């Protein structure tokens, strides 16, 4: 129980995947991974330390171990991750990204986990909301999130065809700000990634999870480099069959999120 967050269960090195690595990374022996800033529980500072823990950093460490590389975790704000990858500052990012065709112009993606979207509402759900009954309600979402760009337009279309008002969305920069808008009664619900919503509900007795849907894969982003993406996909392909993978998922209560197929550049939506 005293294990530090940097400890991930041991995994075997996949020597076939190692052979696929681009020479630069192979010779340096280091995989530089960008992890977004603090967002419990997917990534967060271990209490009182500067060490990142959570599902994303742990998956990154497992990928590194499979490739026989030392993993260097760099914490960066989302705004500076993508330019940083283009700049060659990082090789990969594990940040619960949903792969879309638009984003694939900038990065290559390899699936590593599937998560759903959850709806958080006030305790006891006074408005009896479900994702299908959001028409005309105020819903907080994360800027640029999959829920905002993919789910909401579909629901809106349904509302319109049912002759109901569309959903009133508010876009927040941070899911926490959406949650606090929910607790102060400014909005009726928050629709976001299920791990974050479940964690918030755990911390905050005045809100509850009302609905979870749409379990879809999220992917690790890799700089546009054909060698690197094949190496990472090979590593993930062997990783998802390992015990270590399951142990890590279970540690964060995401056992259902295991994937069986580490697809490359498989666009959602």
């Amino acid at each position, binding site marked *: 129980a005293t294990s530090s967050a940097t400890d991930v269960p041991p995994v075997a090195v996949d020597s076939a995947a190692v052979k696929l690595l681009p020479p630069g990374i192979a010779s340096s022996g280091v995989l530089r991974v960008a992890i977004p800033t603090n967002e419990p529980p997917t990534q967060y500072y271990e209490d009182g330390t500067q060490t990142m823990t959570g599902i994303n950093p742990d998956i990154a460490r497992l990928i590194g171990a499979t490739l026989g590389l030392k993993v260097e975790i760099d914490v960066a704000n989302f705004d500076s991750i993508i330019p940083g990858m283009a700049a060659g500052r990082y090789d990969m990012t594990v940040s619960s990204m949903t792969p879309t065709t638009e984003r694939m112009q900038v*990065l290559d993606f390899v699936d590593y986990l599937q998560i759903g979207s959850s709806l958080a509402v006030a305790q006891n759900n006074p408005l009896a909301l479900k994702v299908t009954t959001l028409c005309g309600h105020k819903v907080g979402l994360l800027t640029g999130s999959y829920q905002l760009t993919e789910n909401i337009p579909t629901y809106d279309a349904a509302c319109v065809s049912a002759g109901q008002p569309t959903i009133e969305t508010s876009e927040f*920069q941070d899911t926490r700000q959406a949650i606090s808008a929910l607790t102060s009664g400014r909005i009726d619900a928050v629709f976001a990634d299920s791990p974050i919503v479940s964690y918030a509900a755990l911390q905050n007795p005045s809100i509850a999870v009302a609905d979870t849907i749409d379990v879809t894969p999220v992917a690790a982003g890799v700089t546009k480099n054909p060698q690197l993406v094949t190496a990472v996909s090979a590593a993930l392909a062997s990783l998802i069959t390992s015990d270590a993978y399951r142990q890590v998922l279970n540690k964060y209560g995401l056992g259902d999120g295991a994937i069986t197929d580490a697809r490359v550049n498989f666009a959602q939506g």
Partner: protein
Amino acid sequence: MTFVNRSVETDALTSSQSDPVVPLRHPVRLAIAIVLVIVAAGVAWDVAMNRGYRWDVVAQYVFAPRIISGAALTVGLTIVAMAIGIVFGTILAIMRLSANPIFRVIAGAYVWFFRGTPVLVQLIFWYNIAALYPVIVLGLPFGGPGIVIGSANVLIAPITAALLGLSLNEAAYMAEIIRSGIGAVDRGQYDAARALGMNGRLLMSRIVLPQAMRVVIPPTGNEIISMLKGTSLVSVLAISDLLYSAQIIYAANYQIIPLLIVASLWYLAMTSVLSFFQGKLERRYGRGFDVRTSRSRRWPLRKAS
């Protein structure tokens, strides 16, 4: 030795010493200038050519509706928040200079508090005030009875919270600026105005404030520019100003640098327009003040002319 006594040509910007004059050369200055010009040109050339900037994406988004509406919101917020900030700041400045110690203390405390806390905190406070005060009650303090005015969430829409936060904060800064402007008005102007029977509001509005303007305008220009950019803080309230609109777009397509360039181009355009009007206002309110003062500002590399 010959002495020149011929009449002098009247095109006099250059020395018209009638002997052949060898103007002073500044080899070091010239070299520095040439280097700087080359560097500037190089940077410009590079920026235009470097494919990392993705000028094609910039061109695609620079007039995107979302960007335009974000820019409009930024301008709108800035205008309203600055207007309130200036008016309220003027009142605070006058209170701080008042003979009434209570006014002085209250205005001083206000400035101390609002300059001392981050705008972000103030914005979040106003936005989430319902968590603290679910209903807004007009009533006696210390738990006395009161009249319920309404739910905080209804009364304080996000945009209201944004305006409240930005303008109350701005008022504190403007108060300091206007106070220093009032202090720069010559004492004799008060005497002259009072000797003519002017007083209170009239003295302030007709004599003191118009003259304070000259000193107040440049730092106010700084404030407006800061406010234009500072409105991006309201994105914590899920309001899409210019910068946040760019962020929303790149959150979806990851074209971060081109979209930041788009936002920067808009900010630069706004700042330029503003500087233009600031220059006009400065000239307008500088009118009637010592021309020599303005002459003295070109220094120190000027030659004794």
